[in-house]
């Protein structure tokens, strides 16, 4: 009964949002459209990071590396063959791939699968580690991926990067990918496998004693996370138009870390909120990078770099004073929304009493 209602409501919401994306695509100016796209892409990657870090409880910092794999796959295979000599002017492209061209959707999937494959290979040694060690090892692998990309010039054009990636820039397209990601991960979390992930997060030893194969499930979470990070990275590549290894420094991962910490580790609706707030916030903070004149005097505080200071201070403040983020491990559900709409004040009162 309830399930059916939620399903219908979700479907309606998706259709409405798709309509909105149609509107955004045709009516909004290119600057706003870019921010909306970035928001959606960050949401995909934030969601993917939440699978490992939030649900399976494995603190991984490899997102930038997996994004790089996706972005480069899209870059390499979607640049039109006739433009490639122009892009690969220093070192000619490897003849093995020089003539392969793919449509974007296929390149995205291939990129995601490659990222998942790399995750599988990395997973064997790395997923035996815990906590800090896992964090540093995944971060290390993210850097190794970047170093390999820098050095494999005949495939990736090395430090010069790949330019002329055909822009996608279609809000509807990116929205659909985001929606699929969201629905897939929500369905995964609500399945038996999702519960197994949570069990591992809560207590590895008990989970194992309940018959959950730790390695298999951690690896699964890691691969799913990498797959979607690869897809998100591919979309990010089309948005940038030019990818080079410097785009995928491990500090890029910190954006998504902030998204999931702010939204709540282990909450997918939280990740969506986090993605919107962080992306929009980072754009908004841009005013801090420009000189500001107040009452005719220059405020010396505002100059390039201040935005990132604010950003990192925000990450710290969030974890110091607001550790559970907006949602904690809770989710926004239809039942809660309806309860809220019926009685907004009572909703929070009851929640306060329950805690």
């Amino acid at each position, binding site marked *: 009964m309830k399930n059916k209602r939620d399903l219908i409501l979700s479907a309606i919401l998706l259709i409405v949002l798709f309509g909105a994306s149609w509107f955004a695509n045709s009516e909004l100016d290119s600057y706003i459209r870019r921010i909306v796209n970035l928001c959606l892409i960050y949401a995909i990657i934030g969601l993917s990071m939440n699978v490992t870090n939030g649900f399976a409880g494995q603190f991984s910092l490899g997102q930038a590396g997996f994004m790089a794999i996706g972005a480069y796959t899209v870059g390499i295979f979607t640049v039109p063959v006739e433009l490639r000599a122009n892009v690969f002017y220093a070192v000619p492209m490897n003849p093995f791939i020089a003539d392969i061209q793919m449509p974007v959707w296929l390149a995205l999937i291939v990129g995601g699968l490659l990222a998942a494959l790399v995750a599988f290979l990395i997973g064997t040694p790395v997923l035996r580690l815990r906590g800090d060690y896992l964090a540093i*090892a995944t971060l290390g692998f993210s850097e190794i991926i970047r*170093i390999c990309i820098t*050095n494999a010039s005949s495939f990736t054009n090395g430090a010069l990067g790949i330019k002329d990636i055909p822009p996608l820039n279609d809000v509807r397209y990116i929205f659909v990918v985001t929606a699929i990601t969201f629905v897939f991960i929500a369905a995964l979390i609500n399945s038996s496998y999702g519960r197994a992930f949570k069990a591992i997060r809560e207590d590895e*030893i008990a989970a194992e004693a309940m018959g959950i194969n730790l390695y298999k499930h951690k690896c699964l979470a890691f691969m799913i996370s990498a797959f979607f990070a690869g897809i998100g990275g591919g979309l990010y590549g089309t948005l940038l138009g030019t990818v080079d290894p410097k785009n995928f420094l491990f500090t890029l991962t910190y954006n998504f870390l902030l998204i999931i910490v702010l939204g709540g580790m282990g909450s997918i609706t939280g990740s969506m909120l986090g993605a919107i707030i962080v992306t929009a916030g980072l754009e908004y903070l841009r005013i801090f990078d420009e000189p500001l004149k107040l009452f005719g005097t220059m405020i010396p505080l505002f100059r390039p*770099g201040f935005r990132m200071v604010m950003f990192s201070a925000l990450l710290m403040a969030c974890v110091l004073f607001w*550790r559970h983020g907006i949602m904690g491990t809770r989710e926004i559900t239809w039942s809660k929304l309806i309860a809220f709409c019926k009685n907004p004040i009572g909703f929070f009162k009851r929640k306060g009493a329950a805690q």
Partner: protein
Amino acid sequence: MEFFQGFLNMSGASFAQHMVNGVSLGSLYALIAIGYTMVYGILLMINFAHGDIVMMACYFAYFGITIFHVPWYFTFIGVIVATALLGAIIERMAYRPLRDAPKNSVLISAIGASFLLENLANYLFSGRPMSFPDIPLFSQNIAIGSIKIQAISMVIPVVTIISLLVLLHIVNHTKTGMAMRAVSKDYEIARVMGINIDNVISMTFIIGSALAAIGAIMWGIRYPGITPYLGVMPGLKCFIAAVIGGIGNIKGAVLGGFILGLGEILIVAFFPDLSGYRDAFAFIVLIIILFYRPTGILGERTTEKV
């Protein structure tokens, strides 16, 4: 065959040259790795900001000598004091409030602190690379036979050994050192025994950061380009050095530092084709160590209690 060219062409003199470079890089890694290992030994956390403390120390030295024209020996003392203070402040602000929080929160806070320092440096000192002040005494070349060695390369190992001896004396023969060892052995019991844990932790950060400052000064003289992100790679590598030696173990950190420094230089010397992968070397060693001997070379093996 081309791959082994570097190996075949190596003469005795250039091998000696590489060894000197490797030992001096290893010494620098060792000094910085000690900071990681001491903090991990007590708080069981990676102080992600440690590499950025190194970076800040370089900027302090730059400002002291180049901007304020303070003689280098006074500046260096000032830098060590200021950096030690910075370390203590970071602990106070970013880690102490989370003493009872889940480990992941502390980890995120550490990442945040590191990122904040980098962005602050970028904002305050601009992202343009600056040049570490030149001190002719250290930067001159000394010729020994057919090899030429920068004076600093000889100074680095000596300073490292002296610092290490002083540190070992502090840890093994003073009251503060005893308290540190007690806290790293058993946090709870040390607390019950009346040891002021907060002071011990502050002391650990002060000592670790002071050593990082010494390392940073010599790093700056050896590799003079200063940027806000200068500390990132050395930071990661020194943490890896600490893990290789056995985290929590000071001698292990030194051993790990030398293994990593020498390994890195020699691999590039023997296989010039791999020089692009130089930074990947440390991570590969890390993975291998964690796989086969997760507690490091000198670490104790432990079993988790169920």
